[in-house]
Each structure stands twice: as C-alpha cells, then as structure tokens.
C-alpha cells in the first residue's frame, strides 16, 4: 500500500493499465509533455512514449471522435477533456456516436473509450471551471457514468473503466484531487494522507462499475450522494449527531439500485444530494427510484439538495455550493417529518 492523493491514484491507474495492455493510449490537451494541467498524466509520456500519450489540438469534438476511431481499430483510448465545462464541443460525438455505436451496428463496432474530465466547483473557477454536467450524460443511453470520491475508488474505478467493453465518462471532482473536503472553505485544507481511502495499492485492482459503497452505516436516515458531496454529507451528519447511513453512488450508470433500496428500507428516510443544479439533476432519478421501490417504507418525503439552478457564479461560490448548512436544513426537515 502507498499513500496517494487522487491525482497520483489516477496516474497510477493509467500506468498500471498501460503496462499491462499495449493497446491503452492516452490523448488530450496538454497531457503529454506537460503532464496535464492538474498533473494527472505526469510522467506517462516519458515512460510510454509520445505515440501512446498524445498531445492533441484544442478541439474536444476532435479528441472524442479520434478516440472513437482508435477504439474501433482496436486501441483502448483514454481521452482527457481538460475541464468538464469544455466537453460540450464533443457532446455530439459522445451522444450521437460513442454511446450508440454498439447499438446501431448490432454489436459489430463497439467503441470502448474512457473519457476522463475534472468537474465540480470550489476552486473559484467561475462558470467555466466549476460545472457538474453528469445528468447531461446519464440521460444518454449507452454510456456509463462514474464519479469517485476518494483515491482508492478513483484508481480501482478507472482501471475498471479502461477495461470496460463500453464507453465510460469518468468524472473527477477536482476539489478532491488533493484532499477530502467537507464543505467548509474556511478550514485549512486536509491532505489525503489523513484519510483511510488515501491508502492505495500500488498494483492492479478493480473497483467494479455499478456498485455503490456504504461509506457510513447508520439507522436513522439514508443520504445518497457522490463525489465531493460524500464528504460534505459526512460532515453534516456528524455536526447534527444524526445516525445517518451515507451511500456513495460511485457509478450512476449502471446504478446499484439494490444497495440504495436496502438502505432506505432500513432507515425509512432519504436525502439525495449532489453539487450539480437541482432541476432535472441526477438526484431526480435517484428520488424517483427510491419512491418507486421504497414508498411503503418511507416515513417522510424524500429530500433533494443540489446547487441552485443558476450558472456557477464566481463571487458567490459558497452561497451556491450545497454545503453542510443546506444539507443540515434538509436533514432536520426529514427527521422532524412523519
């Protein structure tokens, strides 16, 4: 085992995959010589050569399309989109092409591409470096959508994504790259070395896609969340002294319905939380699923917390961010109801 932050864990995942399988290639803006603006691909071009770690022109549509072509010709491309906020020029290639190739070719032309991209706010990035666009992709049929909340999961999930037979959108909460974040920007930053999930095996292992993780077992209420909000939820429950069961979804598509349902059937109360805008957010899918499966176990209406339905504003980062206070208010409503 080694101590790794999320950047090192992701780097290690790609290193392991590239060493194991010569068909794995990386492509993206600034990822080669420079090692990526967040250093996630640092050293990989030196180690594997510039024909396996490709710097690309600045065109996300081109990056995704080229990755599709490479995958169809037998490579396993891992494309980096520098910020999730910049993925939209590649959206047509993802939605109309990548996600549907297997279906429309009746299985003859699958394209197992992994697209990695940093998402989420909390770094004063304004509306163009802060978005959480996962729901724009979970709504598309044919692409798996994953978001880790810690270094251990990040590495295991990325290896599973690269080895998957279908395309994966791998969202990396950039606020978690260097340490867990509980939603309080005024506290000093905490490194991953203080967190058990900063312990990461150096070699190969997988965290399977499609499995949620029970981060904290509890009896009073279930909090279903993912990414940065896992840590915010832990802080909110701790502050309130509530015995919450916190579930890290990890994989939105495919979704581990069984784990979610088992928890809510046990607790009878459910809060769904994400950083993304609330309206038509992935939380709506989670809430609908819980309502359908657990209605007769619910003691209170499902609560749903998210970012406000506005672009991510530079000056109001912490008023926008669904911090412990917004979660606590929702948890209090849940506990008082029924």
């Amino acid at each position, binding site marked *: 085992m080694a101590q790794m932050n999320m950047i090192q864990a992701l780097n290690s995942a790609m290193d392991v995959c590239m060493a194991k399988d010569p068909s794995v290639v990386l492509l993206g803006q600034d990822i080669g*010589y*420079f090692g990526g603006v967040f250093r996630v691909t640092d050293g990989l071009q030196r180690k594997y050569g510039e*024909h396996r770690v490709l710097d690309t022109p*600045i065109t996300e549509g081109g990056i995704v399309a080229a990755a599709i072509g490479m995958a169809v010709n037998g490579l396993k491309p891992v494309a980096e989109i520098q910020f999730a906020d910049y993925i939209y*020029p590649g959206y047509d290639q993802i939605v109309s092409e990548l996600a549907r190739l297997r279906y429309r070719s009746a299985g003859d032309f699958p394209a197992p591409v992994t697209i990695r991209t940093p998402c989420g706010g909390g770094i004063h990035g304004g509306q163009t470096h802060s978005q959480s666009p996962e729901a724009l992709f979970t709504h598309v049929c044919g692409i798996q959508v994953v978001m880790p909340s810690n270094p251990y999961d990040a590495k295991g999930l990325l290896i599973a994504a690269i080895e998957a037979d279908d395309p994966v959108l791998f969202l990396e909460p950039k606020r978690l790259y260097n340490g867990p974040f509980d939603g309080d920007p005024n506290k000093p930053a905490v490194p991953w070395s203080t967190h058990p999930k900063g312990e990461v095996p150096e070699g190969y292992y997988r965290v399977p896609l499609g499995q949620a993780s029970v981060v904290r077992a509890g009896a009073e209420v279930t909090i279903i969340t993912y990414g940065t909000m896992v840590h915010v939820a832990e802080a909110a429950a701790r502050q309130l002294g509530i015995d919450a069961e916190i579930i890290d979804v990890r994989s939105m598509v495919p979704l581990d319905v069984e784990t979610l349902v088992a928890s809510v059937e046990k607790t009878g109360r459910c809060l769904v939380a994400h950083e993304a805008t609330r309206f038509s957010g992935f939380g709506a899918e989670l809430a609908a699923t819980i309502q359908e499966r657990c209605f007769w176990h619910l003691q209170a209406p499902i609560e749903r917390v998210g970012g406000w*339905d506005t672009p991510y504003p530079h000056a*109001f980062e912490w*008023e*926008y961010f669904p911090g412990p206070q917004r979660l606590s208010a929702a948890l209090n409503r849940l506990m008082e109801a029924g």
Partner: protein
Amino acid sequence: MTRPSRLHVPHAPARPGQPPDFSYVRLSPAGAVVRPDVGAPVTELAPLSLELIRVLDDQHAAVGPWNPNLAIDELQVGLRWMVLTRLYDERMFKTQRQGRISFYVKSTGEEAVSVAAGLALKPTDMLFPSYRQQGLQFVRGMSLVDLMCQLLSNTRDMCKGRQLPVLYHSKERHLFTISGNLGTQCPQAVGWAMASAIKGQEDLAATWIGEGSTAAADFHNALLFASVYHAPVILNVVNNQWAISTFQGFAGAEQHSFAARAPSYGVPGLRVDGNDYLAVYAATRWAAERARSGAGATLIELVTYRVSAHSSSDDPSRYRPKDEPEHWPLGDPIERLKQHLIGLGAWSEAQQATLESELNEQLSAAWKEAVGYGSLSEGPKLHSDLMFEDVFKDMPQHLIEQRAQLRREKA
C-alpha cells in the same frame, strides 16, 4: 512490437534546458510585401497569407506600402495605451499573487495586437475579443476603476460577480461579453456582421482567437459563414506560439500558416508582424475598408509571442525554455514603437519615464478606489440575491423559491 509507428508527432522547437529556436518563424523584410487594392480578387491576394507584412524596419523606421502614415499624436496615443496595458497587466498580476483577485491573464508582448487594431476601427464597430486583448478595453474608453471592479467581483462589477476576472464586457462601448470557452466568439462575430449587412449598417465586427483555438470547429464555422455571405468581419488569429503547453504545431502550423487557412475558403488571409504597431494598424485598416466596401471578410494572422504564462494558474518553465521570450525575433511592440517615435524626434526616454510614472499613479489611484467597492475577501459584498437574477428575464417560480431558501440559510 511489430514495426515502428509511422505516426507523426509535432515537436516543440525547444523544451526546458534546450536553447530557444525560432528558426521556424518565416520573416519577410520590412516594407517588402505588396499592398494590393482592397477590391482585388481573392485569388490574387493568396500570397499575402504566406509572407509577413512589416512596416517598422530594424532601425525602427517606417517603410514600404503598408505604412499607415499616422500623425505623431496618433502614434503617441498608441504608445500610451500599450504602456498602460502593460503596466495594468503587471499591477493586476501582482494583486492576484497577493490573493486580492482569484485569477489573472496577462497580455505582455501582445499589446500591439489589441491597441493598434482597436484604434484602427470605428468606435461603433462591434468587438468580440478573447481573454487576452485587454488593450481593446482601454482604447474603447473603459475606465480603470470599472475594469478593476470586474477583477475584484465587487459591488461595482459589471458582471455582478458572475464571471471570472478578465471576462469584461460593455454594451455601450460595443465590447461583447468575453467567454471563458475557447473560440466560441469567432462565428458569433460573423453572425453579428451578417446582421449588419442585412440591416444595411456600416459597422463591421472584429474578433480575436488564439492560434491554438483555431483547432476548434467554431473557427472553421466562422470562416465558412464569413465566406459564403461575404460578411463584413475581421477574423484575427493571434498566433502567440503557445496555448498553455501546446505549441502552435499542434494547431497545424507545421503544415501551413494560419493566414493560409483563409484563401481555401475564398477569404483573403494576411500574415502580419503582430509586434509591429504600424503593420497591425495598416492591416486592420485594409481589412476594414474591404469589409465596408462590401467585399467581405478578411483573416489576419498576427505573429506574436506570449511572453508571460498562459494565466496565473500556469508555469511555463515546465514546458518551454526560461529564456525563450528574450529570443523572440520580432522584438517588443512597445520598445519598437517607442524607438520609432524617438527616431522621428517626437519622443524621448525621459518622456517615456514620465508617462510610466503618470500611468502608475493613475493605476494606484484607480486600485485604491476600486478596492473601496469591495473584493471577494474584504469590504462590501454583492448581495447574494443577485445570483438568481438574469438566468431568465423574469424569474421563474423555482428560482424565487431557491432565493428564499438561500435567504433563510444566511439568516
């Protein structure tokens, strides 16, 4: 391994630890490039996309057919705005390092690109800049305090706290809101110009895109629409050699100049010394005349060099030689115009020093006033209700509810 890969991978001319190498930059002697009539057929203009239009020679004299013959006071105004741009950049970058603003982008070495072009256009021409043409903001008369308040996201911020620093706008000064996304403004400028043509207006549109961003489909959409509709637009490609760590070879520069993209769309392309104030001015004037005469769009590639980091978040010593800026063959735009004026007997080092201290005083006074209107960390703050406004013209019910919820959170 079966056999070696035949994939070509562009290589930067020099990396850290290697001697800088600009031998790839093709230069033409100052004054050597012909200046065709703006009505000339596009096919005859194609050579302009491969040569380099220059006016100031190595002795800083203005030579050749592209000399715009500006009056002394016009040259002095240009110098003044360029110096202000540089001093503003230095000052604001320092405030970022002190934690007073969250982010900054300098335009050091590229001041002529924005200042000369801005002054060569009419005040009602619509400008669609990217995030590295702050000189346009100055020549359009934006006040220092207003610009600084945007950087501070404070109570006088024109963007009401919604945009990253440097993404300014001004409707009354015809400066379009700057996008943090790359290249998006380029085809929008073409659309604005098409509307101008539809409405029979004289005004044209001008836009600026980095050479790295010409990779984006938006750039190609812009050229195509500009070509099809003869839109009165000037498409400026600021070729400053570097897009963060991505050198211009990854945008296709090994194959052809950026100006040469245009003729294949039926649009003339001018390759211009972007550090030569007079050349930038003259090329912009030529393109503007051409647009106003109904002949349509022009692409101008401005060959320049990004002296500073990409942004306050970037460290170029990781990917290019530290001393690369000193070896840039086209010099410094401010120094060159200054020497030209001195050669004309219309400027002196003493006047330059006086100008700099006068502008520095203005900057100090403006900063003092601007921080009085608050910053992200100190002083008065924008009301967080503002977050919910302008998503739509009329606020929908769910945002009214969310605004109320935030008020309760803050109570």
